[in-house]
């Protein structure tokens, strides 16, 4: 099996990383109907960059994004920061292993990572005295994992060497 990291890619540009995070925040802030069923796009993009570029994007970026998410959503300051730090750590830690697998098997790893992240938020919220919001809570992370191939394809577009001009 050829590791999916063996494709020769162009070096990543900083603007791609920042742009993808802004886009993810934008998607998160869309007025969704039931938030439990919507994947956390910021977490997904963060996991992607931590897996692909563990030396550029890591815990510090995750923590800062988490603070931004906390303030923007009006929840306890530090809740998403904690969850995203954990996510960044797991992604960086597992990045070499994950990249060895094909996209579908990568999704399974990502599902686990996103579920652990969601569990961290759940623990914080239950600790703060909130009620359990029901099992649909796991739909979001699983949906996020299903989106992983799409995210991989989209975010690697600017780095692909093609004869054609890249779409983005």
């Amino acid at each position, binding site marked *: 099996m050829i590791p999916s990291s063996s494709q020769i890619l162009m070096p990543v540009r900083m603007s791609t990383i920042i742009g993808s995070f802004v886009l993810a925040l934008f998607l998160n802030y869309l007025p969704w109907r039931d938030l439990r069923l919507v994947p956390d796009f910021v977490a997904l993009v963060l996991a992607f960059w931590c897996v692909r570029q563990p030396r550029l994007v890591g815990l510090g970026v995750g923590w800062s994004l988490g603070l931004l998410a*906390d303030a923007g959503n009006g929840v*306890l300051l*530090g809740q998403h920061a904690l969850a995203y730090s954990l996510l960044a750590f797991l992604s960086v830690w597992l990045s070499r292993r994950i990249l060895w697998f094909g996209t579908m098997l990568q999704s399974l790893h990502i599902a686990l990572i996103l579920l652990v992240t969601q569990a961290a938020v759940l623990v914080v919220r239950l600790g703060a005295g909130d009620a359990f919001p029901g099992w649909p809570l796991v739909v979001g992370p699983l949906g996020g994992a299903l989106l992983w191939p799409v995210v991989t394809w989209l975010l690697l577009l600017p780095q692909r060497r093609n004869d054609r001009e890249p779409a983005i």
Partner: protein
Amino acid sequence: MDHTPPPFFKRGPAPLVRLFFFASLSVALLVIDARFRYVDGLRTWLALAAYPIQRAATWPIDVATTIGGYFSTQANLIQENERLRAQVLANMQDAQRYHALQTETAELKRLIGAAEKSEVQTTPAEILYLARDPYAHKVFIDRGSVHGIRPGSPVTDDTGVVGQVTRVHALLSEVTLLSNPDQAIPVEVVRNGLRAVAFGGGVSGMLELRYMGANVEVQNGDKLVTSGIDGTYPPGLAVATVVRVERDLERSFARVICQPLAGIDRGRYVLVLNNEAGRPPRPEETQAKERRADKTRRSKARDKQGPEKGGDDSQ
């Protein structure tokens, strides 16, 4: 044996150490925010930084509405116009009766010398987005301290109370919905004037009247309005309809479940009521002191009387 890598491979502290650092930083922030509220300044700045993205995120919906409006057919428009005209007629009738009743009430109040109720100022606002947090039951509106929104103001839509402003940033503010389990609203039953407090039911989106005796006179379909006793919500705003009353003989309280009238999880436009003027003044610090002094004086007096009237307690 030295296992440390040469300096050009150095990548900073180990990931586990970093995780520990950031996790403890987060936990410290959590505790400070939950217990002491010291970081509200930081939160306001972060919210301001996130504002452009939040604002942009409402743009697709606006575009969709505009395009939808462009393609709406003439028949639809005529139908809607007719419906609106009928509604305006009905509303006009109600409004006329309201004005007549208002003058009558004012006269009656003047007769009995009650305080004149001040007019409630309102600020229309648009819901920007829901908080990305299924636990929270909060929405964000596009009016903030710049527009004169104050924390604690009630928020309504065209059908009833939606919630209450809980945090105000510069350009937007946070509204806690009635369905939030920590949110309580004083209500009264329209049919018989029975007072109660409605609490948010959490995920179900329902409200619950707590601490109602098992024999309380509440029926299915009873309308609940704000009683205005707390001084925060003006009296008479529609809140909910009772949908289920469970009387369990084993418990001393009845379980009363109500369906909120306002679209607390739908709708886009809300009204923020500025009820500041109608609020009674806070009890002064001096009053509290006086009361305390009074209490100690009384207890001293009792101590003095105690030995002389020792037999009072037994009677």
